[in-house]
């Protein structure tokens, strides 16, 4: 537990240092190779019709070359949809999956990102498809029929998110805007990190996904983000066989007596503090007694788009005052 915490603190400090040093610089190491674009030193966010294409980006399905500016993009990930609109590629998006409800004007379709339907995707004649998971070799199948695919899997860290934003931007011809958005998110997180107080004992939290005590560990992206805020997850290491989304027992939650309870039910329901304290034994929990039940937007909390800053803001504001 303490080893974990020290490691967390160290990485938080390191991230802060790096962020301050490079703030606004948007360092894109080897993510993008677009020689024409590098010479363009302006920081304008407008998408200039520079000869950015063909461009080659590095994604989770390897090096992907996009021959021309995509104008019929299909995004099957709400996180990537948010990135596309944030970097200014919204006009090029032809269709997004059923879960992509942000921004509101995204062209939502019935397409599923969980069980992608290759035929239905192909019928839209997309020139670029973004995916966040490669279930059942769907990437190979799409590529096999000649569709360009960029796979960006769930990130493990904020650095991954910045890289993904820049990759999305490069693939759609918005290199500069991508660097800017990534830098904005980065500095937003850095500013919030400076509000996290030093604590002798890290706060512990329980992250509730369902009424049945389904939770997540620090191995998930959102868990890693919460660790940055100096919070210890009570589910860490409890059941190594159960993966990153274990189910805890009611007794365990009561016994560990977390300082904070985050509620982000996947089905959108949000039990109130009253409802929580009505559960057997919960009225005595520190988090309930001290009123530290924090409802998080389950949509934002399950995504890794630019709005992660808003989520982090909620978390830090809700916990910063706690000594």
């Amino acid at each position, binding site marked *: 537990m303490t080893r974990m915490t020290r490691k967390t603190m160290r990485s938080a400090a390191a991230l802060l240092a790096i962020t301050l040093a490079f703030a606004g610089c948007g360092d894109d190491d080897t993510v993008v190779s677009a020689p024409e674009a590098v010479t363009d030193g302006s920081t304008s966010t407008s998408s200039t019709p520079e000869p950015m294409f063909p461009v080659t980006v590095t994604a989770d399905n390897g090096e992907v070359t996009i021959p021309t500016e995509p104008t019929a993009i299909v995004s099957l990930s709400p996180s990537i949809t948010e990135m596309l609109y944030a970097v200014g590629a919204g006009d090029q998006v032809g269709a997004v999956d059923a879960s992509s409800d942000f921004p509101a004007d995204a062209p939502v*379709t*019935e*397409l*599923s990102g*969980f*069980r992608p*339907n*290759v*035929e*239905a*995707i*192909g*019928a839209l*004649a997309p020139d670029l498809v973004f995916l966040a998971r490669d*279930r*059942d*070799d*769907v990437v190979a*199948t799409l590529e*096999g*029929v*000649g*569709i360009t695919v960029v796979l960006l899997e769930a990130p493990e860290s904020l650095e991954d998110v910045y890289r993904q934003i820049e990759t999305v931007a490069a693939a759609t011809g918005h290199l500069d805007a991508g660097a800017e958005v990534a830098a904005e998110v980065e500095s937003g997180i850095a500013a919030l990190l400076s509000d996290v107080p030093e604590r002798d004992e890290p706060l512990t939290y329980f992250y509730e996904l369902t009424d049945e005590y*389904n939770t997540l560990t620090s191995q998930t992206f959102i868990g890693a983000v919460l660790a940055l805020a100096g919070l210890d997850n009570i589910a860490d290491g409890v*059941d190594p*066989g*159960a*993966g*990153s*989304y*274990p*189910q805890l027992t009611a007794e365990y939650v009561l016994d560990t007596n977390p300082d904070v309870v985050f509620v982000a039910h996947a089905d959108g329901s949000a039990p109130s503090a009253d409802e929580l304290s009505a559960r057997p034994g919960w009225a005595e929990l520190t988090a309930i007694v001290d009123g530290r039940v924090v409802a998080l937007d389950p949509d934002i909390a399950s995504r890794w788009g630019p709005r992660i800053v808003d989520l982090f803001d909620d978390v830090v504001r809700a916990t910063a005052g706690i000594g």
Partner: protein
Amino acid sequence: MPRRHPTRPPLRWLVLSLVGAGAAVVVSVSVGPIGVSPFDALRVVVDRLPGVALDHGLDPTRAAIITEVRLPRVLLASLVGSVLATAGGAYQATFRNSLADPFLLGAAAGAGLGVTVALTGAGSELGDSGTAVTAAAFVGAMVAVALTYGLGSSASERTGASLILAGVAVAALLSALQNLLLQRDDESIRDVYAWLLGRFNVAGWDEVRLLVPTAFVSLTVLVLASRRLDLLALGDDEAHSLGVDAGRLRLAVVSAATLATAAAVAVSGLIGFVGIVIPHAIRLRVGPSYRRILPLSLILGAPFLCLADLLARTLLSPAEIPIGVITAVVGAPFFLSLLRRSRVRPT
């Protein structure tokens, strides 16, 4: 229906069935998010053959979707339909039990456990690639049936009843193990259930290639065994007096049926009802001889599952309805209407 039943399938039935199976394939290949006429669908497919170039007017991506995504899916569904229907009919003959289906001896539970082991943390060292999962399903199904056979076939037994009971016990045990693994690994539940509910949606030529050889060998064995299965219908002792060793016949039929079923399940997930409804529907029309039922099950299982899959992928497109739901919802009323119209009682 006359009470006297000839034993060979009438030519008229064979021809009609084959034409029906062919028509189902052509219609299925032409219907989907990218709609083409059956004629164009044929042109696209023929154009794909080596050494042939046909103008079909479709852009390469759309043509590729038809030949690389839809066609293998349609063929795989047809093949799996043949396998499950024939295996089901053969099981009903072997166990003289009209409720027997290809999963009677634990093949489904074994495959389910195999897949769960491969997809959950328990089998992470196996890797979770598609090949590993397919292999795990196949091995799981084979091991489960072997286990049932080892536990259930006693020298004194005469009817196969103890095999069925052993199958129930083995299936219950394996399902319990599967539930334990699933409950401990929430993340995999979605993957496992997607697999269990049928996975034609991810079928490709690889799956077809995997299934064809096993299906060919097994189905040949089963159809060739149909005359002996007719004798077995008289009872183990009567069959024995006519020169049929019931125990050995049962072992051969169960081995062939299990091999094909395990291969089908490995590439397509668990699809119920086909193995019961098709042989029974045929039995109601052509009588109880397995020399008629098995060949016709082989032919008619194909269009049944092919068209069921067509409904599964088009009714709620782009979402899919689990194929097992379609086979039950379409198959049950169809089967019941056959039962009501027919004077013939199932064996």
